């Protein structure tokens, strides 16, 4: 696999080079673009490392959504007339040693950890052994929903907090108008008519195969977010000043479904967070997907709710 290592070395070098550029650069927009590229390369790295689930998530969330979110924020600053060229203020006296130390430390511990023999009954191995009992084919989904459901539930809480927090700091500001893309352009309408349905299709696909193959609620949610963002950016849906009941219900759906099913296990005399069957897995995953998609779209649009365009 010498070519493989060559590919890895190339990827690794580019990652380091890009990060260095981003950190020391002078023009923010350029660094933002480089950051997006960094995300792409990270996704490739996941693919190289044999972690397609993570690569999926990275492609959808890490590279796609994060980059788009950053770009939007940049646009908002730019629209407000923020001076963009704020070169990194250099205080290397303090920062350089810290950074070098951190890097070297991480390298040393990482390399020495490589030498550590893997514990035979490591949790990851156990996951593979116990997976068949869960009825799931994808060990990662097994960990996320069955073995360590609490983590995932709290992760949904993190998303909700991000949304509530964003709402709180949004203040009384009226949601801005985001779209600028002319929908009358044939290409854009083509995009809307082809890509939007396809995203729905792929999201559903990812959600369904997630139990047995790479995929799952997060990836599906991210894809769906892509659809939402598309609609927002083309002005098909508009930000609204106040959230209706449906928006709120959808925003909490994932967390609420997980929590409700998790607690109701008590009534059956089981430990909390025990899922009663495969239907619960599908229910929770669907709810989570919808919540993720709505939450991320709202965060993207920086608004409390979305609605169809009013003429």
């Amino acid at each position, binding site marked *: 696999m010498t070519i493989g290592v060559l590919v890895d070395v190339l990827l690794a070098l580019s990652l380091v080079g890009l990060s260095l550029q981003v950190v020391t650069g002078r023009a923010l927009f350029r660094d933002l673009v480089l950051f997006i590229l960094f995300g792409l390369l990270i996704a490739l790295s996941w693919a190289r490392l044999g972690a397609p689930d993570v690569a999926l998530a990275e492609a959808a969330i890490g590279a796609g959504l994060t980059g788009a979110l950053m770009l939007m924020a940049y646009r908002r600053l730019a629209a407000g007339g923020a001076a963009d060229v704020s070169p990194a203020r250099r205080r290397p006296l303090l920062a350089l040693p810290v950074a070098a130390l951190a890097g070297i*430390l*991480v390298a*040393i*511990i990482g390399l*020495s*950890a490589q030498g*550590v023999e*893997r*514990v*035979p*009954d*490591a*949790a*990851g*191995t*156990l*996951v593979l052994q*116990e997976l068949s009992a869960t009825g799931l084919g994808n060990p990662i989904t097994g960990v996320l929903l*069955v*073995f*360590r*459901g*609490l*983590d995932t539930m*709290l*992760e949904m*809480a*993190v998303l*909700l*907090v*991000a949304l*509530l*927090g964003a*709402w*709180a*700091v949004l*203040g009384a500001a009226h949601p801005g108008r985001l779209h600028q893309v002319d929908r009358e352009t044939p290409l854009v309408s083509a995009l809307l008519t082809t890509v939007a349905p396809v995203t729905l299709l792929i999201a559903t696909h990812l959600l369904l195969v997630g139990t047995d193959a790479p995929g799952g609620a997060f990836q599906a949610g991210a894809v769906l977010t892509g659809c939402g963002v598309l609609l927002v950016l083309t002005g098909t849906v508009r930000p609204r000043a106040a959230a209706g*009941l449906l928006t*709120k*219900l959808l*925003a*909490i759906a994932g*967390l*609420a479904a997980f*929590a409700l099913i*998790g*607690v109701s*296990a*008590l009534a059956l005399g*089981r*430990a*909390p*967070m*025990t*899922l009663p069957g495969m239907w619960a897995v599908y229910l929770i995953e669907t709810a989570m997907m919808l919540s993720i998609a709505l939450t991320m779209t709202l965060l993207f649009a920086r608004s409390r709710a979305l609605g169809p365009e009013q003429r």
Partner: protein
Amino acid sequence: MTTEALTLLVFAPLAGALVMVVAPRRAAAPIAVLSLLTLPPALVPLTRAVRAGELVQLPLAGFAAPLGIVWRVDALAVTMLLLSVAVVLLVSLHALASFPPERESGQRFWPLWLILVSSLHALFLSADLFNLYVTLELVTLAGVALIAVRGEPAAMRAAMRYLLLGLMASLFYLLATALLYGQTGTLDLYLVGERLEAGGLTAIAVALMATGLLLKAAIVPLHVWLPAAHGKAPGPVSAVLSALVVKAALYILIRLWFWGGGGQAGEHAALLLGVLGALAILYASAAAIAQRRLKMLVAYSTLAQLGYVMLLFPLASAGAYRAVVFHVVAHGIAKAAMFLAAANLLRALGSERLQRLAGAGSRHGLDVLAFALAGVSIMGLPPSGGFVAKWLLLAAAWQERGWAWVVVISVGSLLAAVYVFRVVSLAFAQPLREPERAASAGEEQGRAQLTSVAALLLAALAIVLGLASAPLIALIDQGLPPGMLR
């Protein structure tokens, strides 16, 4: 019973938050009150079980470690939960008035508040390194959002700084978690403790994790974010941040060190942590003395008081453990009272400049009294919880022949006296000029009184803790770390 109790502690506030998001405004106050009032009854069976010498364990979803996440409650966890519930309930009383749930401000505040409570409890229950990471993130994010909830520019800047450093700290923590998992094949803290072997790798992992946690706990010199964050946040938020949130990081550190094998990092590391604590006590106290704003002074005082906790690591005795845990409780209650009182004074005087306090003693007597009573505990003067903590800590330091620590503790409490009395003196001073206070409406008056009562109740609790320390100490002694003799 204990299973239901554990579930309630985490899920009741969470459910409250979720329902409040979708429920009509009218229902907000009852929902908040209801979800909070379920907490004290939940503590009863837990406390009883732990007092009976039981280790309450709940493998979530029925999967034991290392496969699943296990909630474990020992005496330390129960102590933290007791502190949390006491502080949260009384501070919520304040919040009911300062953030009326049915108003716009309350609608923003309360769901975040309840999620913060829920995640704090999940943190105290958890014995899983990665689950702790998730809860820590949740706590941090909710905390940041609450700091900025009023949309004041200074608060937002402080929140931003807190967020950035908090996220960085989490990454340090996560890195160390990965390393520990790689070494031991488990994320369960207790199993990690059993499987971890002393060595360079362990030491570095612990150092990384400690760095992250110390950053979250704002131990000098990693404290830069705290004064502004706690100083600019709304009163109830400052109170809970100082009383509970920073303690949560220290709680994890103590768990890691004495239960999770972190102590294998060695005596020098422990000494280093102790020195940082001493530095915190001395530096932050001096900084508090130099402050010109009331809440900033209180925030720096928090920094100083956190330093005492760090002395546990070099002393590492049963006595020191008992002292430090008691200190965490005593300081939590007193500091919450102090922040609430400070916030009330700030609102009443319209300025947080210390000089404006002149003469506040006669016009805002209740708040000044609450501040002073809390101050008694902070200074470690009898008969307060702070005194008992100081006594225990001094005794422990003396027993371990840590003369330097004795000096630091004594000097620290004298410095505390300087900054506390600076405030109280001003309140006693003759007013600079007659204040022009607009007569406030009846309802607002009632709210103001409620906020003062909340502060005073907490302050009284801080004092009572000194007189009724025996049960708490007995509880703490029940859960000494393995290897520590009583």
